[in-house]
């Protein structure tokens, strides 16, 4: 099972996991930018004086691989990612594009503009690491398995979060109470569609239902929603008659079938159609032109740059830019609008149910390449707009000499708005995850688009790329409906791997087999969507689809089903034939020779009694989830029948488990597909839990959490990294008991724990309540040893003002001899040296002021200098230095450990080896003791199995396969069938063969008395993880220390040496105990105890002052201490010191008095001699 040492590792399965990120960026580089540039509208500047027009547009974007800036232009040296990480710079390449100028339709002049350094994704086509084999990657100072998919920005690694978006180009019926707040007469029902252009920008359109039977089309322009009567839009789209619209709308209603299966239309549809048409007539709009003028008139003020155009032109532009932008053809738009109306009416008449927006069926995912493309588009458009505004300003400003016809002048003006800002805007977006946009880009959220790719351990790192977030706007929702685990996400999102707590159910993880469709086909070529559409159309017509043509009135369900391709109505198929068509399409999908892409989604929603609105929806678009299943209707002996299916179609498919059974299906609905392996429903992290099918399910969830906070072997290229904080396990091991996923994804590259010999018994009492006893000698031998690497970057350029930048350098002070034991003459520490808190680790010399400044270690623990790296780019003087410290973190009492089954515990003792119980036969002493009470309520049976299996495996020198759901896999191989059915029997026999107890128990002797323990003890190796929560990072104690300046109370915060608040509830408990002295001690003596002088005459706390005794010229008597000057306190108000008394009080009381005084309130104390003092 384990790869032989030296054999080339296959990282391909691992790379597959990162594909969605990389492919989307690759597409952007290859074709996405070109497409996007084509979609950027050209702008026009008009000079009234010369009556010349200048048309500006952008073309020919070029993105270059990251290169170092060099003095000689001929040789460019590649900039490698590790250099960026260490130098804390961004991994970015130059973005150039041509700006075209055209005067009055004359010759086109191209001018190249530099749009700055554009962030490049690692392992994308422009990355230097692309295509490098593991050996080469290591020579580039990366991990051998470096998968990329992230950006390096200022040395930090950031990933674009995959976000859930509504499925593109699919009209979705929705019920939302907020719809009725749109205005008078609006109902809560609407059909909405998110239309996506070829350049991935999207515009959502909503079709609202009015209670009077009409409908309104709503779309957003510049942060405002505009609502148009649907009739006007229908008429404005195509030249049509009222009758045609009426017939088209009512085609879904057939008197013959009143209430049958799949009937969506009712009589009311006709009535509503009349209302819609009447509305238009009431506005006295009859022809298309009238409708266009009506729309144009209303929209001209909002549309920029169309002030001088005619109304119909404006209306056309509005419809082109905002209504069904995924379609180019007005007839298609008309058909889609008719369909949406029918779907809306069916929703109202309850002949179909609303689509669930929380279901994965109606969702897709936002990919990094697409996000960057749309953001870049907006920034470029803004830049163009700003550019022409600048030109316009110059033209109108008569005082300046500006030649509009001179390109040099125009270019100079445009450069006032630097083009380089474009790339830095994108970089900023990736750095902060915040979209700085006016329009909102049709997105639900503004922030949280990117996250840091933490390399705490490999599993955490990997999970960042597989995580799918529902969206920040849902996190604040009080309802739990969005968080629910729906059956629709089966096989696409892991049911186990979601955090518990705040983001539960919102942050999901893709299953290990789940893929995201991209613009690339299986061969790696960019898909030609037009060609695909045409070939699909051809096939559909062959099998009996009636194509939709202008002026051709279709029938509706249940007679025929409408066929969509990517949101475009292409025809209809008779409902009797549709199953055959679907089967045919699926067959073509799988066959490699066919033109149909293998990831096309055949969303066939069958006729039903008031179910989802029927239709045949074909999707070839990118950024859909897909997963492989076996199509068993196609005979195959190998992998030729593996079909990629999406969540939209899955709900209407019959997919059986691969255990060979039928899953209790009725004979009427035979299974057409079969799962490839039951573990396909698990994410990578979840599928690493051995025998997770034997565990109680919440425990598997906990394990997914804890696997991600394990202190593990985080990086092999640790020498070449400069992470702020990096946890590292010194002596990791590979687990004896492992799942098939462990090998598949080469987790051995980054192991996460240790095979510890675990005895389950109550021993010494230190293992109560999930505490665990570690064997002191095992720890001394190196078990769970680890360290934290922490890097400090000192950049002299960052510090201070520009003027003294050059004057600073790293140098040790010649005057201060004390630092020479810490620092070398270059001002930097010796490698391998121990530095204690408050000791210097770096010295900076300022030439101008001739002074040195030393950086001192903060924190509370001594650290070792692990590594010092310097920036040699600047030849003159060192300016940038990375100093990496190593904090030793060997196990101590209070550190947290866990097995792979959600069984976490805290080390309560490091018990001497000699006092640990030992086995009589082998003499073995456990590394770790846990309490038997950890099992009954938690039911982590797999942990017991692991212990037995690992014992057997280690005796035989073999790894044990612990892939879950083994019993649900078809037993045709005969391998598993021959043995006993029970897993326990199988594992027990292994032990028995080697002379051990069948159940994994052993006779242990007390480590103290040497007598046998009264029962046999369950003992065996279990893979244990060390979690990153360590006491050394957490302990917080103080007796005295820093206090707040205002209140003189102890401050809070561990970092600043503060204490833990003794709060109200703690106070209550002390009161309840009657522990008055303790209470006084905590809240007064140890807090802001203060002895104040109070004037008993006026009762004031604030008017008292010290009176400095007048210094009399007393001759000092040699040798004697100076006589203590008597402090005299007196009251300013009473002008006497007669009534002075001292009172003990909390200092805040005095502060209160002062605050009150500021409000002109006097506080008077009445002193009495009550205590008898």
């Amino acid at each position, binding site marked *: 099972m384990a790869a032989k040492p030296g054999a080339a590792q296959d990282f391909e399965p691992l790379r597959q996991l990162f594909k969605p990120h990389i492919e989307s960026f690759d597409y952007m580089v290859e074709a996405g930018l070109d497409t996007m540039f084509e979609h950027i509208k050209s702008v026009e500047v008009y000079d009234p004086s010369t009556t010349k027009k200048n048309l500006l547009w952008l073309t020919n974007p070029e993105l270059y691989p990251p290169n170092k800036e060099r003095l000689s232009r001929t040789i460019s040296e590649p900039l490698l990612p590790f250099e960026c990480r260490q130098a804390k710079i961004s991994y970015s390449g130059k973005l150039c594009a041509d700006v075209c100028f055209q005067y009055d339709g004359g010759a086109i002049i191209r001018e190249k503009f530099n749009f700055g350094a554009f962030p490049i994704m690692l392992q994308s086509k422009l990355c230097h690491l692309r295509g490098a084999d593991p050996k080469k990657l290591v020579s580039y100072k990366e991990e051998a398995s470096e998968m990329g998919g992230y950006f390096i920005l200022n040395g930090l690694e950031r990933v674009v979060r995959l976000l859930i978006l509504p499925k593109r180009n699919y009209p979705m019926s929705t019920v939302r109470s907020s719809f009725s707040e749109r205005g008078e007469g609006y109902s809560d029902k609407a059909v909405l569609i998110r239309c996506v252009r070829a350049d991935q920008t999207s515009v959502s359109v909503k079709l609202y239902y009015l209670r009077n039977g009409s409908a309104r089309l709503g779309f957003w322009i510049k942060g405002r929603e505009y609502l148009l009567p649907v009739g006007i839009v229908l008429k404005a789209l195509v030249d049509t008659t009222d009758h045609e619209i009426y017939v088209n709308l009512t085609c879904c209603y057939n008197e013959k079938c009143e209430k049958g299966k799949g009937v969506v239309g009712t009589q009311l549809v006709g009535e509503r159609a009349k209302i819609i048409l009447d509305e238009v007539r009431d506005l006295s709009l009859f022809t298309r032109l009238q409708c266009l003028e009506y729309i144009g008139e209303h929209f001209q003020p909002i549309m920029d740059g169309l002030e001088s155009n005619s109304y119909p032109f404006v209306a056309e532009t509005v419809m082109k830019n905002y209504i069904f932008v995924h379609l180019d053809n007005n007839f298609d738009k008309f058909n889609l609008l008719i369909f949406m109306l029918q779907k809306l009416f069916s929703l109202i008449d309850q002949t179909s149910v609303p689509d669930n927006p929380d279901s994965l069926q109606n969702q897709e995912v936002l990919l990094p390449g697409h996000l960057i493309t749309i953001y870049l588009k907006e920034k470029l458009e803004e830049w163009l707009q700003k550019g022409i505004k600048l030109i316009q300003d110059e033209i109108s400003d008569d005082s300046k000499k500006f030649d509009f016809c001179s390109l040099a002048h125009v270019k100079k003006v445009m450069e006032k708005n630097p083009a380089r800002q474009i790339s830095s805007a994108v970089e900023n977006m990736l750095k902060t995850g915040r979209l700085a946009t006016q329009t909102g880009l049709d997105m639900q959220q503004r922030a949280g688009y990117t996250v840091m790719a933490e390399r705490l351990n490999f599993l955490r790192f990997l999970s960042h790329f597989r995580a799918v977030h529902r969206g920040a706007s849902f996190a604040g929702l009080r309802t739990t409906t969005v968080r629910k685990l729906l059956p629709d996400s089966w096989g696409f999102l892991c049911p186990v791997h979601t955090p518990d707590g705040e983001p539960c159910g919102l942050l999901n993880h893709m299953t290990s087999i789940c893929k995201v469709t991209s613009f690339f086909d299986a061969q790696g070529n960019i898909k030609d969507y037009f060609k695909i559409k045409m070939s699909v159309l051809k096939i559909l017509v062959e099998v009996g689809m009636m194509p939709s043509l202008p002026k051709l009135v279709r029938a509706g369900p249940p007679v025929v089903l409408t066929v969509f391709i990517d949101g475009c109505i292409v025809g209809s198929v008779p409902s009797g034939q549709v199953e055959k068509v679907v089967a045919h399409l699926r067959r073509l999908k799988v066959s490699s020779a066919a033109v149909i892409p293998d990831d096309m989604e055949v969303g066939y929603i069958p006729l039903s009694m008031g179910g989802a609105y029927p239709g045949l929806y074909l999707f070839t678009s990118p950024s859909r989830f897909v997963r492989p299943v076996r199509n068993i209707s196609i005979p195959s002996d190998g992998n030729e029948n593996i079909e990629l299916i999406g969540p939209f179609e899955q709900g209407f498919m019959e997919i059986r488990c691969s255990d060979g059974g039928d899953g209790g299906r009725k004979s009427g609905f035979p299974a057409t597909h079969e799962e490839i392996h039951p573990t396909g429903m698990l994410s990578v992290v979840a599928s690493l839990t051995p025998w997770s099918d034997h565990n109680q399910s919440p425990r598997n969830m906990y394990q997914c959490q804890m696997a991600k906070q394990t202190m593990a072997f985080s990086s092999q290229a640790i020498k070449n990294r400069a992470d702020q904080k990096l946890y590292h396990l010194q002596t990791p091991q590979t687990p004896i008991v492992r799942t098939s996923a462990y090998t598949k994804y080469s987790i051995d590259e980054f192991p996460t724990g240790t095979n510890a010999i675990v005895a389950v018994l109550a021993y010494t009492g230190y293992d109560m309540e999930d505490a665990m006893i570690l064997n002191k000698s095992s720890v001394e031998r190196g078990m769970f*040893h680890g360290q934290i690497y922490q890097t400090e970057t000192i950049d002299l350029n960052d510090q201070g003002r520009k003027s003294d930048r050059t004057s600073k350098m790293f140098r040790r002070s010649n005057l201060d001899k004390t630092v020479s034991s810490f620092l070398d003459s270059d001002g930097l520490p010796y490698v391998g040296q121990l530095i204690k808190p408050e000791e210097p680790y770096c010295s900076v010399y300022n030439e101008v002021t001739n002074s040195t400044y030393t950086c001192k270690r903060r924190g509370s623990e001594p650290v070792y200098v692990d590594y010092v790296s310097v920036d040699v780019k600047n030849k003159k003087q060192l300016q940038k230095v990375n100093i990496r410290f190593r904090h030793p973190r060997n196990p101590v009492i209070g550190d947290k450990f866990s097995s792979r089954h959600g069984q976490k515990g805290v080390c309560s003792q490091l018990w001497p080896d000699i006092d640990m119980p030992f086995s*009589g036969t082998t003499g073995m002493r456990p590394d770790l003791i846990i309490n038997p009470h950890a099992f009954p309520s938690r039911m982590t049976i797999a942990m017991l199995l692991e212990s037995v299996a690992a014992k057997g495996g280690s005796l035989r020198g073999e790894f044990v396969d612990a892939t879950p759901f083994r019993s649900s896999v078809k037993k045709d191989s005969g391998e598993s069938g021959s043995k006993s059915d029970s897993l326990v029997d199988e594992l027990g026999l292994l032990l028995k063969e080697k002379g051990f107890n069948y*159940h994994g128990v052993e*006779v242990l002797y007390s480590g103290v008395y040497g*007598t046998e323990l009264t029962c046999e003890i369950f003992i065996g190796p279990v893979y244990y993880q060390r979690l990153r929560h360590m006491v050394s990072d957490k302990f917080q104690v103080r007796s005295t220390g820093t206090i707040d300046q205002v209140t003189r109370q102890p401050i809070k915060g561990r970092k600043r040496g503060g204490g833990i608040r003794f709060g109200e509830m703690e106070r209550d408990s002390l009161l309840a105990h009657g522990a008055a002295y303790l209470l006084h001690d905590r809240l007064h003596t140890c807090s802001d105890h203060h002895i104040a002088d109070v004037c008993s005459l006026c009762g004031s706390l604030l008017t008292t002052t010290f009176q400095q005794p007048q210094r009399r010229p007393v001759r000092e008597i040699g040798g004697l201490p100076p006589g203590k000057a008597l402090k005299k306190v007196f009251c300013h108000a009473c002008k006497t010191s007669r009534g002075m008394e001292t009172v003990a009080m909390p200092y805040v009381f005095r502060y209160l008095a002062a605050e009150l005084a500021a409000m002109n309130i006097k506080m008077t104390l009445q002193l009495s001699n009550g205590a008898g003092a």
Partner: protein
Amino acid sequence: MERLLKLNRLMPRWKVLESRSRFLMFVLEGTTESFVRVLLRIMTEEVPTIAIHEVVIETNSSFLSDSFLAQRLRFIPLTSDLANLMYYSTECPNCNGRGYCHLCSVEFRLSAKCVAGDVTSKDLVTSNPSVLPFDFFDPTGTAIVKLKPGEELTLKAIARKGIGKDHIKWSPLAATSAKYFCPSDIRINEELMETLTLEQKKQWVASYPTDLFQVDPQTQKVVLCRPGNGYHNMPLNPEARGVIEVFEKKDTFVFTVETTGALKASQLLMNALAILKRKLLSFRVLEDHFLDHDLAGIDKLDSEN
């Protein structure tokens, strides 16, 4: 108490079952668990050996950090026959406890520079030829680190005498165990057993979890299946009282000793016994003390005898 008295009359006797250089297995008869424990404890914790205690790293460009390297070095077993003649570094009279003289320390030097193969324990150059890595004459030593081209490792390691109680690196024991030689014996009271019905017998058998008993299918008698293995100290069912009798035999032990290589197994045992003897001797010193200063007390003791 009775058992102890019986034991007291006997002297422990021992018989070697198997003896190799690093392995020793012997039977100890006529003693108690406490004595066995004492022996085990002394062997693991108190027999002094020599191990690397201080590492001075001059150059280290290998991929292992200094502390990791030191961790690997300190667990290389060093032949420690000399340990008894050496001083603990803190008590060394020759160097006043500084711990760098030849009486209390052994210096090793290692300098390697991108060698073919690994840097192993064989590369450690000792200052005292009788203190060597235990596998010095083996064809392959213990790997310390692998070096890449251009990497270099120069260090000085100072080995000192110590005991396992302070750090496990000084423990000469790799594995040890002591168990009852002949575990308790179980006898079935056949007469009483026969009074049970077959159903009852089956129930009775099932109440013992580890297949201790079985009902013979032919004779329908309850028989012991695993004589001599793993049924010690089993809990007796209250109903079973009288049906079986358990005879405990707890005065004979099998002892297994396996060393790391620092000492020979037999040597380790001898050293351990010597330490035990020395510990007991301290009571003699106490006796002398009494004789000198508290004659009256001793007189009393004498008269009692």
